[in-house]
């Protein structure tokens, strides 16, 4: 038959097909000696047909590593099974180039079953091998990555059967990858609730069912094969194919034992601290109560002493040594009454409950305080100036007392110069920042915090006062949610700052 044109059939002879096929054909004896080869293969390899069929063996055309594989695997498989398919081997061409190939082989047998001929088909696999090596490199990278990360990773197919576990997952579950693959995830990853111990649905299965990412779950423990209970954080996501169909899931989890232990320690410490604070508050209250009762009860016998001292003076005349002695008694008793009054106000400051105060005008309270201090101010020749003051959330008596104590303090600790005292205010968020600046003797840095402690007097009896005024201020301010502190330059003066809520 010849070629027929115009839409008829085109004949291709078997001979030409053999020679020009898009793959290499090679036949050898059982011992491997090449007896026949097609033109395609001779062209690929660069050898002439004569060079190949004059004693060369099939294995001689391969790389050395390939030749070992041929002798230890390929030829045996061919002899035992008659057929070997899809073996990747590299040919070495005449010019030294390497031709990656995929080889199929068949063994022809005679009627008695004895092998007579080996037939090989050689496919050029240059591109494919390159692609396979990239694939292997990618797989190795993925494997190394999954082996290196600190989280457990488990993947499943769409039925929830495990397809992969990384080493961290293996050690947390106590199952190895080989044994776990093919098992249902519920058999390998047993999850329970931290406190109830009830079974928890595996997030991987939820991800499969809902087709959505399942976020971190708390309070989950992993029950390992040796019955350890490991607290874990886990999350899962569905794996989708290109068409968006869910084909599996990936579960990522991590051991949070250390984190849980730290959280618990923190909680315990917090609870302990709370208990301590409560204890402290109670003992403070008790102390204030005691101070209040004690000072209250001390007042009446003291008043009796003062009254009877006056009576003595009136009745038995006031002259000479007797008068002097009575003056001592009166002065000591008066000082004691001041002390007791201050103590009482300190105790009251801490025991009076804070009621939600109506905002009050600070200007009025400052004025009242200055009136109370009139005699001291006049005596010291002090000048007190002020900024316009706002309204603040504090009880009237408290703010009056604060001003009185701070200004009284500034006068008491004045320097040689006449006292100059200025009260100002600045807004700070929802707080007012008050300051009371003086030109007094100042406070050494090491005493800046100590001045607020009760009965702490830096100058003994050479200055008036009981050493309780600043402690009362501190207590009143703190009870109203503010703070008080002092900045000072020794010899130049001090500025007391305190904050109070703006009352809006």
């Amino acid at each position, binding site marked *: 038959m010849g070629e027929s044109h115009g839409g008829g059939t085109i004949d291709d002879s078997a001979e030409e097909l053999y020679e020009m096929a898009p793959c290499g054909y090679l036949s050898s004896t059982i011992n*491997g000696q090449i007896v026949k080869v097609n033109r395609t293969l001779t062209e690929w390899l660069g050898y002439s047909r004569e060079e190949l069929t004059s004693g060369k063996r099939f294995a001689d055309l391969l790389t050395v590593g390939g030749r070992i*594989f041929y002798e230890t695997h390929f030829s045996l498989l061919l002899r035992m099974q008659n057929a070997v398919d899809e073996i990747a081997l590299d040919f070495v061409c005449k010019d030294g180039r390497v031709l990656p190939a995929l080889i199929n082989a068949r063994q022809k047998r005679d009627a008695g079953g004895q092998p007579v001929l080996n037939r090989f088909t050689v496919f050029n696999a240059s591109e494919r091998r390159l692609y396979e090596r990239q694939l*292997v490199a990618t797989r190795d990278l993925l494997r190394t990555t999954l082996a290196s990360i600190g989280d457990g990773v488990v993947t499943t197919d769409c039925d929830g059967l495990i397809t992969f576990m990384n080493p961290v997952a293996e050690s947390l579950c106590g199952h190895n990858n080989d044994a776990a*693959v093919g098992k249902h995830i519920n058999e390998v990853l047993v999850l329970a609730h931290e406190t109830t111990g009830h079974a928890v649905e595996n997030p991987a299965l939820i991800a499969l069912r809902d087709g959505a990412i399942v976020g971190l779950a708390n309070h989950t423990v992993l029950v390992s094969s040796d019955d350890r209970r490991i607290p874990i954080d886990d999350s899962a996501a569905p794996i989708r194919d290109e068409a968006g169909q869910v084909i599996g899931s990936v579960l990522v989890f991590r051991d949070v034992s250390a984190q849980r232990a730290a959280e618990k320690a923190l909680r315990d410490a917090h609870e302990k601290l709370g208990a301590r604070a409560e204890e402290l508050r109670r003992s403070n209250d008790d102390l204030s109560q005691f101070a209040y009762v004690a000072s209250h009860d001390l007042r009446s016998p003291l008043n009796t002493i003062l009254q009877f001292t006056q009576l003595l003076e009136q009745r038995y005349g006031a002259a000479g040594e007797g008068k002097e002695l009575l003056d001592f008694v009166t002065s000591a008793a008066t000082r004691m009454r001041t002390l007791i009054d201050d103590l009482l106000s300190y105790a009251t400051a801490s025991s009076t409950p804070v009621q939600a105060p109506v905002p009050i005008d600070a200007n009025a309270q400052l004025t009242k305080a200055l009136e109370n201090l009139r005699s001291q101010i006049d005596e010291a020749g002090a000048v007190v100036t002020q900024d316009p003051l706002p309204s603040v959330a504090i009880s009237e008596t408290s703010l009056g007392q604060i001003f009185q104590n701070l200004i009284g303090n500034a006068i008491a600790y004045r320097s040689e110069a006449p006292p100059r005292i200025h009260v100002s205010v600045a807004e700070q968020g929802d707080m007012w920042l008050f300051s009371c600046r003086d030109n007094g003797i100042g406070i050494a840095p090491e005493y800046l915090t100590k001045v607020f402690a009760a009965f702490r007097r830096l100058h003994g009896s050479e200055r008036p006062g009981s050493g309780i005024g600043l402690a009362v201020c501190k207590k009143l301010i703190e009870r109203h949610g503010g703070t008080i502190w002092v900045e000072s330059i020794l010899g130049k003066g001090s500025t007391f700052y305190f904050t109070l809520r703006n009352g809006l």
Partner: protein
Amino acid sequence: MSVVQRRHNINIVGHGSKTILFAHGYGCDQAMWRFLVPAFENDYRIVLFDYVGAGKSDLSAYSRQKYGTLSGYADDVLEIVDEVGAPVIFAGHSVSSMIGVLAAIKRPDAFEKLVLLGPSPCYINDNEYVGGFGRSDIEGLLKTLDENHLGWSRAMAPVIMKNESRPELAEELAESFCRTDPEIAKHFARVTFLSDNRADLPLLTTPALILQCSDDSIAPDSVGEFVHRHLRGSSFVKLEASGHCPHLSGPEETARSIKEFLSRRG
């Protein structure tokens, strides 16, 4: 079934007062003796086994440390010999011939005779010594192994085992007797081709037969002759059979040579 039997998938066939232990070489399993066994069945008790890692052996018994040297394999051979009853005639192919030599040096009483098919004490060229290969050639083999897992798929195997509706699928895979865990295959390749047992040869006292193939590119003539020179009193037969597997390429000739050797006294 004993631990050793299960570990090595030991099969015993044939009848006779003497036992031949056939030890397969690198790359396959006991099935490679298929064409040789019939020639001995009527006169000998024949023990076939798979090394750990090969064929239907217990893969879980594989230890990279134990099988990091041929000595680890020799210890297994001795356990198998004790299991089936010493002394035995040992026939080993390729790397197994060296494993047999090591085992017989450790326990001379356990072996009556050794038959070494295509032995090589060292595959790597070393100064004057020509083993046939350089180290880079072995790397090339490892690369080829990486590209040919011969139907072995970690992910597929358990799935196929479970596929009860198509049992022929599992059978088909089981039939592929070169099928080995790729990691084990590569490790065994390294241990085999990078071993050097030249210094052990003079220590052997058991009578040995060296069967040298024609055109063996794995263990060429010069290597077989080296073994013959260093094994005292050994016999050497050059076979017509070509390639590295005379028991496959020329089973009748191979059987004849072995029988002739076994019939000799001492």
